[in-house]
């Protein structure tokens, strides 16, 4: 017997189970006995063999004289023969399970007219079961052909109850077979038993005789062992502060009720037998920097089948193997529902009602519904679908096919001596994997005891940031006027006019142009960051002011910039421009990326916006042109193609300073004039011997507020002023260049009033000796000055280089 392989406890359990069945059988047996006695009563009246039956008729009559006469007939005699007859009947159909050792009980009754010898033939069995040639006579618990020691058929046929079967006495024959472990639930297994009875000869007139063959069948239906079908569902939160609700529907989807087993308790560190233990690892969001969900409140114990009691346990261990407690803990990492029973029969968790179709399948009618809630996690990716995944696992007891072995979800810790009552404490070391099984159960297929995989996520809070390269979160004021915010952050660039240094002539008509670069595009890299808690798709809307166009391109290989890293090249180097990701806007128009880009939470996406003047546009030196782009995610409001800036639509500005950023403005001051009468107006003319002071004022034309440490800077980094921060600048004044003639009309740079170099280093030519002497006896000084300015010139910063000359 299979049971014999189990430990003593199981033998006891098995024997108990078998005896319980025998109790049921006993009822049947008793009823048959009663019926047999009834038959026996009639059978007792049945004429035994060798009985002689005689008959003689008689008659009375009278004659004409009314004299009475009596006459008798001849006598007819006959002898009753052996009339063997065997009744064979199966018992009511029963449910069996894969792997179970099943006893089919047959009732054999001598229905002949005398004691006879019953011979049972080798039975047959249909697919799904294998005959064990193990027989039990009359349900005896011990002895030959008993529950404890079933016997072969050959031995059974020699038992006195069969060899001398008296008329009308019912005999119970237990035929054992084993259901194959691979037999599919729903399979019907039938055994068929045949037999005859022979009544011995009494004399020559009454010879021995054998009955016709009696046949009976017993039909069993294979049903699954007790199996906890769990269906888990999760309700995602509907607001940023909402809770996540997890619901576990449970049913015993097997064909049998569940017994209480020690294993169900031991997995929680208990020594109390339990019918089921449902374990659930609280979902954990993957990723770093995540604020994990917390158990919101102690969940209610669900309604359970009659006589069952549920208790909720919590564990804060990392593997669910220890630290179980009934005390609610909001930081629990595991939660469990433990069900015990007070049902004396031991079968306490009834098999499923109609509708339990398997683990991981939604049930139309559940035997319990366990619900608990958690807070939302916070952090990158927590609102992504499937951010929170988990499976409920379980243990359920009571499996006839496995001799009482519980069904344990694959991932649940398994105690190899799960039913050993002597183990004093919870031996975590003997348990296997944690209760974190991740293989979902589907339909009626394994793994039993596990639910479906459920996925949910935090409430999606999409957020977009758009800003200078690698600094999407920058704040600033792109023109120094508007308020500092991350909607007004900017990247400012200047470029060298392709037609030479930017020149401004006051009052010049037409205005002096600063031609747009012809060899390299003016393309400004920006960065979009997904600042929400889940992946999102982003588009970029780019806008150009009147007279300009914009087109966006993919970009790669951009350097990583931080506020301590000074400017990258605005357009020529530092990034590799890729394919266009938008069309070209109309002059003064806008354009949106042709396809959305998916950006994971916390991740960034770089792009460049390339700008160009439309035909007829004359960029003016040092006159900034402000462009803007808006990156927006799926939650943004877009009206007529124009996103409304907000949480999920962020704007950044790209400000271009043609010919910038350093602007030099030259002015003159006539210090002294000639002594003629009338003297020329000092401000407009000078006579020979008069002195003029030239001032070269250089200025970073970007708003001073943008300079490092400047007021209202926000987080806008100075480096965002690509090419704007002037480093290594040199101020040059050539008195003989072009229309400039102070080099030929004066004695050159005078030493009388030393040049003001503002910390710079001057280089003079064609001589480095400044003019000396008194007019008209002055020496010729330099006609060209070049002053190398030290350090950098931050936005808004200016300085003045000045020198004096005396008119010849």
């Amino acid at each position, binding site marked *: 017997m299979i049971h014999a392989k189990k430990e003593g406890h199981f033998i006891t359990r098995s024997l108990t189970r078998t005896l319980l069945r025998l109790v049921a059988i006993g009822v049947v047996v008793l009823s048959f006995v009663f019926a047999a006695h009834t038959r026996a009563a009639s059978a007792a009246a049945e004429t035994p063999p060798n009985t002689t039956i005689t008959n003689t008729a008689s008659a009375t*009559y009278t004659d004409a004289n009314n004299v009475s006469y009596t006459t008798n007939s001849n006598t007819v005699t006959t002898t009753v023969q052996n*009339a063997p007859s065997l009744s064979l009947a199966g018992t009511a159909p029963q449910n069996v399970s894969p792997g179970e050792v099943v006893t089919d009980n047959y009732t054999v009754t001598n229905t002949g007219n005398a004691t006879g010898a019953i011979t049972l033939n080798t039975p047959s069995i249909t697919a799904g079961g294998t005959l064990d040639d193990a027989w039990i006579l009359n349900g005896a618990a011990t002895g030959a052909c008993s529950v404890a020691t079933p016997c072969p058929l050959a031995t059974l046929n020699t038992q006195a109850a069969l060899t001398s079967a008296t008329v009308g006495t019912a005999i119970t024959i237990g035929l054992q077979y084993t259901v194959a472990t691979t037999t599919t639930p729903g399979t019907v297994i039938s055994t068929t038993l045949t037999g005859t009875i022979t009544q011995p000869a009494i004399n020559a007139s009454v010879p021995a005789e054998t009955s016709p063959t009696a046949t009976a069948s017993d039909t069993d239906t294979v049903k699954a062992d007790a199996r906890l079908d769990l269906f888990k569902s999760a309700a995602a939160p509907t607001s940023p502060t909402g809770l996540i609700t997890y619901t576990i529907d449970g049913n015993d989807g097997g064909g049998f009720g569940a017994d209480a087993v020690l294993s169900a308790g031991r997995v929680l560190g208990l020594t109390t037998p339990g019918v089921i233990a449902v374990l659930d690892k609280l979902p954990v969001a993957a990723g770093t920097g995540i604020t994990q969900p917390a158990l919101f409140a102690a969940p209610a114990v669900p309604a359970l089948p009659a006589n069952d009691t549920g208790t909720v346990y919590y564990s804060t261990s990392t593997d669910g193997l220890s630290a179980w407690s009934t005390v609610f803990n909001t930081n629990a990492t595991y939660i469990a529902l433990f069900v015990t029973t007070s049902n004396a029969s031991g079968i306490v968790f009834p098999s499923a009602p109609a509708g339990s179709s398997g683990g991981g399948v939604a049930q139309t009618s559940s035997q319990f519904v366990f619900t608990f809630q958690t807070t939302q996690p916070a952090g990158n990716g927590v609102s992504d679908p499937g951010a929170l995944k988990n499976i409920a696992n379980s243990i359920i007891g009571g499996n006839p096919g496995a001799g009482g072995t519980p069904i344990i979800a694959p991932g649940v810790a398994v105690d190899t001596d799960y039913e050993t009552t002597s183990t004093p404490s919870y031996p975590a070391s003997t348990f296997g994997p944690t209760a974190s099984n991740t293989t979902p159960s589907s339909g009626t297929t394994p793994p039993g005891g596990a639910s479906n995989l459920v996925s949910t996520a935090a409430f999606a809070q999409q957020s977009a940031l758009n800003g200078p390269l690698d600094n999407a979160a920058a704040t600033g004021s792109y023109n120094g006027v508007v308020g500092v915010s991350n909607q007004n952050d900017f990247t400012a660039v200047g470029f060298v006019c392709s037609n030479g240094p930017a020149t401004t002539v006051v009052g010049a008509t037409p205005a002096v142009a600063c031609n747009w670069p012809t060899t390299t595009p003016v393309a400004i890299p920006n960065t979009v960051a997904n600042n929400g808690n889940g992946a999102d798709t982003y588009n970029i809307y780019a806008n150009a002011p009147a007279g300009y166009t914009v087109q966006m391109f993919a970009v790669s290989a951009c350097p990583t910039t931080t506020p301590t890293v000074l400017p990258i090249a605005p357009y020529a180097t530092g990034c590799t421009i890729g394919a266009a990701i938008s069309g070209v806007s109309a002059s003064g128009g806008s354009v949106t990326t042709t396809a959305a880009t998916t950006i994971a939470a916390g991740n960034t996406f770089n792009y460049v916006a390339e700008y160009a003047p439309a035909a007829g546009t004359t960029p003016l030196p040092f006159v900034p042109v402000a462009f803007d782009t808006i990156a927006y995610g799926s939650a943004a409001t877009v009206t007529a193609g124009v996103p409304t800036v907000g949480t999920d639509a962020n704007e950044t500005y790209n400000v271009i300073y043609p010919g910038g950023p350093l602007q030099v403005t030259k002015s003159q001051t006539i210090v002294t004039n000639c002594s003629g009468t009338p003297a020329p107006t000092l401000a407009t003319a000078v006579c020979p011997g008069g002195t003029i002071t030239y001032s070269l004022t250089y200025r970073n034309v970007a708003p001073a507020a943008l300079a490092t440490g400047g007021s209202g800077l926000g987080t806008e980094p100075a480096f965002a002023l690509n090419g704007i921060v002037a480093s290594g600048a040199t101020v040059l004044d050539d008195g003989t260049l072009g229309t400039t003639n102070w080099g030929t009309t004066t004695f050159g740079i005078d030493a009388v009033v030393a040049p003001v170099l503002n910390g710079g280093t001057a280089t003079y030519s064609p001589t480095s000796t400044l003019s000396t002497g008194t007019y008209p006896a002055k020496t010729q000084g330099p006609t060209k000055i070049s002053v190398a300015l030290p350090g950098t010139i931050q936005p808004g910063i200016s300085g003045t280089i000045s020198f004096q000359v005396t008119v010849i």
Partner: protein
Amino acid sequence: MPAVSFQGVALQRLTTAFFFAALFAVFSTTGAIARPVVNLKLQADLVTHDDKGVEKLVPVVDSAGLKPGDVVRYIIVAGNSGSDAATHLVPQGKIPAGTAYEAGSASTSDALRVEFSLDGGKSWSVKPAVKVQAAGGLVEKLADPSSFTTLRWIGAQPLLPKTSETYTYQVRIK
């Protein structure tokens, strides 16, 4: 009377002829006796049926055994070999121990009525009754035919000389 096979009829007629031959032989040797002389002949046939359900009768002889459940038809032939008619002829059959009367099997064509006894012929009734204990006391109910012990035919017409009458009934071997 149930259908009887040709073989059975032939057998019965042959038996009747033999009966009267013997009867007349008695007259020829004893001289004229002015009174009726009724002789009875009892025959037992096993009632069987062929595959088509047609009844067949097989004479039961002493060496042939019967088994519980077998149905036996007893045939009583009463012949008057005397010179006067026999009046008030009452043939009587027994239901032997180990057998039970088959309800409705007694022939009635040659009798006014058939009476049954539950006590071996001490009392008779067309429909014997027994008293049984019921909730309201003893009540009378018809007796189970299997409990009959004896039956008899109450004749309607005298049995004339050199004539015979046949009476049948069936029992089942218990």
